[in-house]
């Protein structure tokens, strides 16, 4: 199950930067304007965009979790032994360019919810959050629904054998 929006276009750089603009001394740059000037550059790490996307995705009703089955399973194991990274980052891949960002997202959806509606809301919310916080233009949000969650799916913890 996959939902795709528009062609991927951002210039891949990893770090958002650009050669100095000789003429601009303005310190206020907004929206799609360059992240660099002779005064210095502004860099937004990929991890920042990833975290914003992750938080924005979880704000959408009907999204139960992020990540594929393997990612969630491995994340659970690594967390249980105390070496796990940030679990909120799983299921999110971003490409960040100088002015644009593209997002790939894998989600688990609650059974009974409209997947097209969730995908639409995800795109809107992620685009609004990323563009609002970073000034990058989101060119693409690809949503892959890889599982359904049924209420009551959680495995009940076994009662402790000793107190």
């Amino acid at each position, binding site marked *: 199950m996959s939902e795709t929006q528009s062609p991927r276009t951002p210039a891949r750089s990893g*770090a958002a930067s650009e050669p*100095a603009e000789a003429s601009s001394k303005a*310190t*206020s*740059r*907004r929206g799609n304007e360059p*992240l660099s000037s*002779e*005064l*210095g*550059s*502004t*860099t*937004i*790490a990929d*991890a*920042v965009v990833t*975290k*914003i996307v992750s*938080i924005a995705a979880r704000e959408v009703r009907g999204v139960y979790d992020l990540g594929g089955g393997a990612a969630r399973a491995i994340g659970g194991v690594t967390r249980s032994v105390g070496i796990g990274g940030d679990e909120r980052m799983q299921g999110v891949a971003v490409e960040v360019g100088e002015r644009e960002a593209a997002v790939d997202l894998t989600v688990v959806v609650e059974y009974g919810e409209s997947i097209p509606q969730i995908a639409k809301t995800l795109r809107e919310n992620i685009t609004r959050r990323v563009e*609002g*916080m*970073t*000034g990058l233009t989101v060119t693409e949000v690809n949503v892959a629904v890889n599982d359904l969650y049924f209420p009551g799916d959680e495995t009940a913890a076994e009662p402790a054998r000793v107190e």
Partner: protein
Amino acid sequence: MPVCSPAEVPASASVRLRLAALARAAALATGGVLGLDAGRAGMRMTASEGLRVDGVVCAALGDGRYQVSVHLVAAMVSLRPLADAVRARVERDVAIAGLADRLGPVDVAVEDVQARTEARP
């Protein structure tokens, strides 16, 4: 020894160290900045004369000025205005300290964002 404020840097210290301390203090005083990030290996820092300023890198430009890079952790706010505010505050505080002619470009790198309730490692 880590430096927490410019007051801990003696006036006789190197310009590089003084600029780094000023930049660190200016960034931390900017609303929306939760902290500075020295990186996993702790290499994003400026060290001189037994003192260390974490999260700020000062690189000599060869003309007597220093390019200052501030690596920060931000709150969930608009990041580009925040970076501009940090840059402006660094420039202002450096000018007040009489080092404006030694300051080159001020680069701002947002390394992480956190909700205010998240604990810093």
